[in-house]
């Protein structure tokens, strides 16, 4: 990036707050701090006129000491001076220089001397052409210079804008965007700036600047006006021009997304180049805010879509699973009126089984809902592992009737610090799993013990069924996924609940093999030592 034009006059700078704290670690922010100043100076005309007069005066003085026959050379030196001056001064000074030079040459060095009038006809033409040449030389050089300056300015603006956009796209989230943007603006303009994101239609409408100390309370109406009217306001504009801050709204396609507040040091003014740059920045910021909004909306859509999917899966599962035992109950009840009393005990047993299944399903649904809603707060208590196992077994006595059950509790098994209901639910789910996935008649065992080096206690349910397919283990923990060939009888929530509950208790669950064939699922819980000797 080419060096900016240094100001031609040093402005007396009153006390201006020191630069802000060092840039945050984010690379975009750090890079923003390394911008060179974008401060195209306004040319100072008075100085230029002075320069022109001085140069012409000096040359004239020198020329007066030379012999009169050198008047052509002097004329050419004047033209050379115009050429050189045009490299330094603006259009009007050089125009004035052209006139002055022609007059001076005519007056001092063309016969008659010290007289503007010219004696010889051809000298009129000479003076005239001289005059024209001086003017044209001056003007074309000035124009070329002006064009070059404009191009330089445009290039600087383009580069600054490009940098701005590049750094902003690297920023993550609106907070970082704001930080990077204000930092860049501060560095480029030697100013202090802050942003407020805002939305129309929000009641009450408020502008909350990220750096509230920069914006005085009484200037908020100016900022608000800028937002609503989509035009800059404040200092350097026609509206609210006696404010200390310059407010630029962030506008995109007639929609406003916020306001950029810029405060320049008291002595400085905002050049047109800088003003254009600010508006370009504001447009970019608006674009980025719009993009962030769209991104957030898209995220919400995705989450909604996911939850819709889960919802559908749940509804399908529930609708199928609940209707089966309900159908059994209804149908069996019908039988009471048609068949004689000797069959009643069988009917009653059917209804009972169906009822138990329904109770279990409802329990599972509730468990899963509690897990999902994050409302699970385990109520820890000292639990007798025998109580836990008995409660679980009692809960599903029916389902286990085709499977001989073996219970082994290690002699050193301590009291377990856990939520009784949660552990009971876990064990029920594990036992049910074993019962449902194994052929009738095969044994199921539940073992409880202490793993002292691992600082944990465990409950392991093992069966002699087909075991777990090695690849699909993680899958089995997902909601509503049933093992291959799993008979109806569960919502597929069992293992998902087991994992959720065990995590809530600070433990975990592991799938494995039962040595000799079959599956084995182990629940681990942290081991805590109870103070078992109370005062007598």
């Amino acid at each position, binding site marked *: 990036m080419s060096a900016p034009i240094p100001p031609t006059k040093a402005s007396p700078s009153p006390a201006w707050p020191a630069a802000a704290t060092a840039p945050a670690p984010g690379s975009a922010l750090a890079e923003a701090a390394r911008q060179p100043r974008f401060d195209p100076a306004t040319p100072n005309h008075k100085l230029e006129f002075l320069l022109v007069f001085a140069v012409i005066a000096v040359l004239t003085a020198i020329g007066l000491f030379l012999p009169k026959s050198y008047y052509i050379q002097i004329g050419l030196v004047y033209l050379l001076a115009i050429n050189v001056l045009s490299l330094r001064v603006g259009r009007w000074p050089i125009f004035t220089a052209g006139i002055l030079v022609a007059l001076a040459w005519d007056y001092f060095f063309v016969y008659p001397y010290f007289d503007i009038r010219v004696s010889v006809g051809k000298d009129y033409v000479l003076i005239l052409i001289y005059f024209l040449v001086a003017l044209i030389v001056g003007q074309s050089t000035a124009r070329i210079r002006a064009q070059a300056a404009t191009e330089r300015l445009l290039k600087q603006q383009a580069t600054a804008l490009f940098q701005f956009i590049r750094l902003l796209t690297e920023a993550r989230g609106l907070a970082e965007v704001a930080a990077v943007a204000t930092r860049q603006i501060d560095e480029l303009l030697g100013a202090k700036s802050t942003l407020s994101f805002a939305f129309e239609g929000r009641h009450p409408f408020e502008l909350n600047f990220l750096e509230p100390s920069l914006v005085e309370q009484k200037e908020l109406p100016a900022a608000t006006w800028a937002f609503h009217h989509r035009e800059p306001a404040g200092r350097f504009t026609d509206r609210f021009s006696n404010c200390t801050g310059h407010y630029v709204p962030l506008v995109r396609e007639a929609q406003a997304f916020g306001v950029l507040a810029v405060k320049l040091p008291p002595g400085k003014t905002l050049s047109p180049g800088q003003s254009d740059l600010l508006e370009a920045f504001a447009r970019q910021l608006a674009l980025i805010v719009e993009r962030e909004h769209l991104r957030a909306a898209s995220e919400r859509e995705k989450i909604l879509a996911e939850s819709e999917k889960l919802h559908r899966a749940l509804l399908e599962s529930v609708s199928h699973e609940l209707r089966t035992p309900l159908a059994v109950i209804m149908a069996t009840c019908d039988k009471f009126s048609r068949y004689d009393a000797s069959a009643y005990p069988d009917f009653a047993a059917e209804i009972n089984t169906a*009822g138990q299944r329904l*109770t279990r399903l409802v*329990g599972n649904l*509730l468990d899963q809902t509690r897990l999902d809603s994050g409302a699970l707060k385990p*109520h820890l*208590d*000292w*639990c*007798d592992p*025998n*109580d836990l*196992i*008995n*409660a679980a077994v009692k809960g599903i006595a029916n389902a286990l009737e085709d499977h001989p059950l073996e*219970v082994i*509790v290690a002699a050193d098994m301590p*009291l377990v610090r856990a939520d*009784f*209901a949660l552990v*009971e639910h876990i064990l029920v789910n594990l036992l049910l799993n074993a019962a449902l996935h194994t052929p009738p008649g095969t044994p199921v065992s539940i073992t409880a013990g202490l793993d002292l080096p691992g600082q944990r206690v465990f409950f392991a349910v093992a069966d002699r069924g087909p075991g777990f397919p090695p690849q699909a283990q993680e899958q089995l923990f997902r909601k509503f996924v049933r093992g291959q060939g799993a008979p109806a009888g569960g919502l597929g929530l069992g293992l998902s609940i087991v994992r959720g509950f065990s995590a809530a208790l600070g433990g975990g669950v592991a799938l494995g093999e039962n040595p000799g064939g079959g599956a084995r699922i182990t629940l681990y819980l942290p081991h805590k030592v*109870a*103070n*078992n*000797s*109370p*005062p*007598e």
Partner: protein
Amino acid sequence: MTAHSQARLLIIDDEVQILRLLRHSLEAEGYEVHEARDGLAGLGKMTSLQPDAIILDLSLPDLDGLQVLGRLREWSKVPVLVLSVRDEENDITSALDAGADDYLTKPFREREMLSRVRAILRRGQGAREPAVVRFGDIEVNPAARRVRRAGVEVHLSTKEYAMLLLLVQHRGRVVTHRYIFRALWGPDAKEDTGYLRAYIIRLRQKLEANPSVPQYIRTETGIGYRLVED
């Protein structure tokens, strides 16, 4: 015990099917059954009917079941059995601490319901305590402070005996953790269920045929313990 057959019961519940179910089972046992569909009606009928026991559902349309219980206990000691949905342990414990005698969770088995109704009626009638209480092959003689199992004396520590006595005095009914603590260690004792579990394990080891699968000294999870006789 024939005294029960004429006992008058009041059921306070707003669910029609539960009312029908209970009425059917209780009347078959010989009880006189009355109903109230909400808390205020129930409280009103209390005074007019003077029932021997009340079955109170904790979720009522107007007043909270606990509120009804509270008001009731201000002026009556009538035995109360509360009905609640499963997993509402906090509500049940609160109800028991507020003066209910026992609880039943829905869905419940008829046998259990009848057994608990019998147990609370027994307490209410202030029947004379027998000299020796028997369950299974266990014999407890409170006067002599003696416990026998299959005829052989069982040695219990002071606290173990106190706990057993508590369960025996409330046999058939639930005894909450807090009640046990208050009774054994006084009102200011720090309640650590670990202690209770330890004592109960020892009692089971000394008295139960299979301490791991106890027949008589049952755990009411999250609430307390119950001595089951039948």
